[in-house]
């Protein structure tokens, strides 16, 4: 397509640049701080210099008389500053340690009635149409098929197959997954299915005609269907979509778990 090499390289680099721009702009919410940072980095050094000059000019009269005092003060402050910085670093370490420990504690406390086993998410399906994940526990840790996987916030999915050291989990947002749920206020049962459209939404179907759905209502598993036990939190009702025929109406359920940032999960062993 391109006659000489120079044009070819130019074409490829333009394509790469466009690709990067598309990726950044199409996932914009996550990247606004990036743009802010760039803007800041461009402007701030000059702004700082200008402010410094302005302060110097406006405080001109006292500038020379105070200079000795300032020097001594500066020395003291510098020493103090280095001390503080060191303690800050120590505190930072303690803080992160504390957070991870708390996370573990919170996870196991919340679902204390079940015997659970923590696991890390090590892989996600590469296809756009399937949302299974792979976790780092398997047959050797006593994991079996159809065990339930949860996270701190709520239900994640169930195990579909195990190898010696890993297990595949079908998440509730996978299109092949459908779970039987209860709405917490009206106690009506619905079926939540995964959609292709979104990583954080389920489609709640088969809502009985005489039940009234409330936006923001909490959704838990109902215990029907054999795999999921009763009372695990799934999400909240985000939107109700009504159709011409009342039997066709459905609701969008926002999952409690953020599947884009899912790192640690808990596997419930036989209870």
């Amino acid at each position, binding site marked *: 397509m391109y006659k000489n090499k120079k044009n070819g390289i130019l074409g*490829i680099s333009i*394509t790469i640049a466009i690709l990067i721009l598309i990726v950044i702009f199409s996932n914009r919410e996550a990247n606004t701080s990036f743009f802010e940072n760039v803007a800041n980095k461009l402007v701030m050094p000059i702004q700082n210099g200008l402010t410094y000059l302005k302060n110097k000019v406006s405080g001109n009269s006292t500038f020379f008389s105070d200079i000795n005092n300032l020097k001594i003060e500066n020395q003291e402050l510098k020493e103090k500053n280095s001390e503080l910085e060191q303690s800050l670093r120590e505190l930072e370490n303690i803080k992160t340690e504390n957070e991870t420990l708390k996370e573990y504690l919170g996870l196991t406390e919340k679902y204390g009635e079940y015997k659970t086993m923590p696991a890390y998410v090590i*892989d996600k399906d*590469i296809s756009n*149409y*399937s949302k299974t994940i792979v976790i780092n526990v398997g047959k050797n840790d006593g994991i079996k098929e159809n065990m339930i996987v949860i996270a701190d916030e709520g239900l994640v999915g169930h195990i579909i197959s195990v190898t010696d050291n890993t297990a595949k989990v079908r998440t509730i947002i*996978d*299109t092949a997954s459908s779970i039987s749920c209860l709405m917490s206020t009206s106690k009506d049962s619905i079926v939540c299915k995964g959609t292709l*459209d979104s990583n954080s939404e389920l489609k709640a179907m088969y809502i009985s005609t005489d039940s009234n759905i409330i936006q923001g209502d909490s959704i838990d598993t109902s215990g029907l269907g054999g795999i999921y036990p009763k009372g695990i939190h799934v999400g909240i009702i985000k939107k109700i979509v009504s159709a011409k025929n009342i039997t066709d109406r459905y609701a969008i359920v926002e999952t409690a778990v953020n599947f884009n940032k899912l790192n640690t999960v808990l596997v419930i062993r036989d209870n």
Partner: protein
Amino acid sequence: MKKTFINLSLILIGFLVYFIQSNFFSWFTIAGVKPNLFVIYILFIGLFSNKSMGIIYGAIYGIILDLLFRQKIGANLIGLIIIGVVATIFNKNFSKDSRMTIIFMVFGSTIIFEVISYIVNYILYSSNLEILNFVKILIIETIYNVIVTIIVYPLIKKFGYYIENEYKGNKILTKYF
């Protein structure tokens, strides 16, 4: 000797493709949609090597992908084997010299692969049929695949002709004269 070297490097490239796909492209997405590098990879093997290689590689990587992520073997296996077949058909009928034809081949084979694997998925897992969302994702994915192809095309061409020389030798010329 050279053929073993080619096969070894193709297998290595396959694993490289897997790691790029699962680590880099899992966050480098267009509106949350990932490209499918394996379609490009199998298409390229089928285009530049002999008849059966595209199908064999398609089968191997299809089985690996199915074993890694799916409950039952099927969707990726059937899809990638068909891409191998399609690539040999393309190879017989089209010239590979122009970037444009390669782009159209990638365009077509991405659509073929995704439609087939979606149908197989639907049959195997009885998942919900969402044609509108499927088409939306498919369009973005196809465009993304084409963009990736434009970027890696010079590499593909160079290595591709090296492989073709090894496998077909002087027979290539008969096609053009």
